[in-house]
C-alpha cells in the first residue's frame, strides 16, 4: 500500500494535491501563514479564497500560529456523554486558557475538535499526535507534564 501523499513534491502542480501540501506546510511551520496560502494558490492555479476555504474547513489545519503542543479535546456526542465537559474545564483550569487560545509562553494551544475516533476510550483528547483516553480531571496534570 502506498503512503498518503507519496510522490507529491513541494513543486507539485496538481490541484488535487492541495490538502497534502497544506498538511505538510502545517507540520513544517506549525500553521498556515498568508504567504504559504498565497504561494500554494499561485503554484496550483487556485484562487486564494479557495485555498483559504480548505485551510479553514479542516480543524487539524490552522491559520493562526500554534503553540508547541496542540491539545484537541473531542466535543462529539460519545465524549460529551462521558463528561468531556469536566475534562475541558480541567484543562482550562490547568493551563489557564480557553479553547481557541494559545498560552502566553507558547507551550500549549487548546482546541475543541469533532470526533477523533477514540469513542471506545471516551472522553478522549489528542495532544499533538498522541491519543489520551479514559480521561478523568485528575489525570490531566500528569499527562500535560510530559509536554514541555
Amino acid at each position, binding site marked *: 500500500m502506498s503512503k498518503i501523499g507519496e510522490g507529491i513534491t513541494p513543486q507539485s502542480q496538481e490541484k488535487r494535491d492541495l490538502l497534502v501540501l497544506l498538511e505538510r506546510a502545517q507540520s513544517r511551520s506549525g500553521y498556515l501563514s*498568508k504567504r504559504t*496560502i498565497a504561494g500554494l494558490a499561485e503554484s496550483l492555479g*487556485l*484562487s*486564494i*479564497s*479557495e*485555498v*483559504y*476555504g480548505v485551510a*479553514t*474547513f479542516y*480543524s487539524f489545519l490552522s491559520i493562526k500560529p500554534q503553540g508547541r503542543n496542540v491539545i484537541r479535546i473531542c466535543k462529539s456526542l460519545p465524549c460529551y456523554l462521558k463528561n468531556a465537559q469536566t475534562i475541558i474545564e480541567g484543562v482550562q483550569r490547568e493551563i489557564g486558557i480557553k479553547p481557541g487560545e494559545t498560552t502566553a509562553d507558547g507551550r500549549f494551544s487548546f482546541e475543541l475538535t469533532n470526533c477523533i475516533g477514540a469513542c471506545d476510550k471516551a472522553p478522549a483528547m489528542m495532544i499533538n499526535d498522541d491519543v489520551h483516553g479514559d480521561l478523568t480531571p485528575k489525570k490531566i496534570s500528569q499527562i500535560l507534564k510530559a509536554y514541555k
Partner: protein
Amino acid sequence: MAEITATINGRQVKAKEGMTILEAALESGIDIPTLCHRPELVPIGACRICVVEVEGSRTLVGSCHTPIAGGMVIHTHSDKVLATRRMIIELLLASHCGSCYMCDKANICELRKIAADLEVGLPRFQMRKNYYALEDISPYIVRDLTKCIMCRRCARACREVAGHNVFGIAYRGFDTKVVVDFDQPIDKEVCRDCGVCISFCPTGALGKPREAKEEKRGKPLIITS
C-alpha cells in the same frame, strides 16, 4: 441520444437519456422549484428544494442532479415532497437575516417567492443569526452576507460563467461563509465590474451600490409659479 419513457405524476413522459429529472419535468410542463440550481451552472444539489419522490428509492432525490432513467415513477408534488420543501424553506428562513420588510430586494427575492408559493409563513424556529458587516467598499458590488443562504450560485457563476474565481467557501457548519481572498471585504482589486454574480444571487446578499448622486445630487426642484 436514446429516448426513454418515465412516469411523472401519473403521466407517461418522454425524455432523452442523460437528462436530469428536472429537465425532463420542465420539458413536459411540470414546474419544480429550484434555488441553488440554474440551467447555466453545473448542478450541485445543495439546497434540496427540488427534491422529488422516486418510487423504489429509499430517500427523496434532488431532481436537479439526478439523471432520469427509463421506467422511473416520479412524484414531484406528493404530500411528502411538499412537506419536505416547506421544512427546507422554513429552516432557510430561520437562519436568514430577519424581516423581509427591512430588505430592499424583498420583491425580487427567489427565497421569498418560493416561500410564498409553498405557503410558508414565519419560521417556527427562533435561532441566533450570524452577523456580518455590510461590505460596501467596492464601487461595483455590495455584499450583505447576513442575507446569504449558501447556495453557492455566486461562486459557481464567477467560475463557470464569468471565468474568474473570486469566491471561496470557508469555515465549517453554521460558520460557513462565502469568502474573498483571506476573508476580507470584497474590493475593486479582486473583483471588477462584470456583475455576473449579482444577477445569479437569489436573495439580497449581492447587489449593485446605490448611487447616492442619482437621488441626492440632482438639481433641487424649485417650483416657481
